[in-house]
């Protein structure tokens, strides 16, 4: 019990003493003064009250909170690129090569059309035009344990892939200038697993528009295209995820 109101200096001294933050001189002064020691005892009771006396979280509450926090993990978003730029015109040799490839593709299409009449009735699920996968509807595993998806090619760096994605058609991901546009087979279950992982962390994403494969610095990746809900003007997110772990490597929004 103290009789006189303590000064601010006395209170600060007693408080610092209580916390072990007083200098040796200050400690000596407090220990020599019964009134200051009494202040220390009073402040000790106050300090004890702050540290105790509330109900801790239940383990169930805590686990639920951690799950939500981990599910909210964001994806690292690549810095926005400047406005779309036209790629410079290719050199004459490359242009000539492109013309030859297109011509060969045209010839092949003509031949394929000539042979196609006999097989039209059973080609519905695996046509060359099936460049996007649809969300699995539940009982469709027998239809496609493998699914054809466009392959965007190999990219040595994230920036190179980002640049290609900036030029891609977000609704198919198939026509990505400057990249190989061959198809590749990928397991639908693997795609769905990775997509579920992405969607769990980003509820704002809408129904998938397209998926493609690519290689980034030697690693196989998926590229998912999703609309972002409630965005005006509309925004599409292209998410790049490791095929093995489904870990999101980065994403861009367009």
């Amino acid at each position, binding site marked *: 019990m*103290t009789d006189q*109101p303590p000064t601010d200096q006395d209170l600060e001294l007693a408080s610092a003493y209580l916390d072990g933050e007083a200098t040796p001189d200050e400690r000596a002064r407090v220990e020599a003064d019964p009134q200051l020691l009494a202040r220390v005892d*009073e402040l000790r009771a106050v300090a004890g009250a702050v540290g105790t006396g509330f109900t801790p*979280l239940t383990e169930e509450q805590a686990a639920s909170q951690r799950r939500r926090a*981990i599910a909210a*993990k964001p994806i690292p978003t690549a810095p926005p690129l400047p406005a779309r730029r036209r790629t410079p015109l290719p050199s004459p040799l490359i242009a000539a090569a492109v013309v030859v490839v297109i011509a060969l593709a045209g010839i092949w299409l003509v031949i394929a059309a000539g042979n196609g009449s006999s097989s039209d009735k059973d080609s519905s699920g695996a046509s060359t035009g099936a460049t996007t996968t649809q969300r699995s509807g539940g009982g469709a595993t027998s239809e496609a344990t493998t699914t054809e998806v466009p392959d965007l090619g190999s990219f040595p760096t994230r920036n190179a892939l980002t640049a290609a994605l900036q030029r891609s058609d977000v609704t198919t991901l198939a026509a990505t200038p400057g990249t190989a546009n061959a198809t590749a087979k990928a397991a639908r279950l693997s795609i769905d697993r990775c997509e579920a992982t992405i969607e769990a962390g980003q509820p704002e994403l809408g129904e998938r528009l397209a998926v493609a494969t690519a290689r980034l610095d030697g690693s196989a990746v998926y590229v998912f295209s999703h609309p972002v809900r409630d965005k005006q003007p509309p925004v599409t997110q292209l998410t790049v995820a490791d095929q093995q772990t489904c870990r999101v490597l980065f994403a861009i929004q367009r």
Partner: protein
Amino acid sequence: MAGPDDDHLVSRAREGDPAALDDLLRRHHDRIHGVCRRLTGNDADALDATQEALISIVRGLPRFDGRSSFSTWVYRIATNAALDELRRRRRRPVTSLDDARPGRREPAVSGPSVGEAVSDRLAVDAALAQVPLEFRAPVVLRDLCQLDYAEIAEVLDLPAGTVRSRISRGRAMLAARLADPGGNSGPPTDRRTPRP
């Protein structure tokens, strides 16, 4: 909460290991909740603030640069989450800043009265709610989290000398409110203190 263990878990969590991330959050969860609980003054707001803090930690982990210890960083996030929650709700009265100006003398503290009051958890909540946030935060970080003054200074971005005086004055205000819950604290106000 050994530092090296935190560092190891942080490293693994940043590499995408969800178990490490869960361990990291689990390790600090109680303290985060404690800070939020004591700063917001009620269970519901504390729950929301704690959730926000956890999400902020997860989202901010890629940007955690290790210049401060992980626990210091976590306390800063928890403190800010609690202050944000209070700002959002705008329903926790705090004492006018005029009450906290230098030179204002707190009423004498009576030992037995304080002792009786601290046994009443509601009284402690009510008394803490009357302590302005700029004083409440350092008191909570000291008395609940046992941070030293240098760590509190880092969490709140304040000079260590300011931390020392604010803890002292905050405790004095708290003791005064516990000893005399209805008196001499001035009208509650919704005025917010600057983020520490």
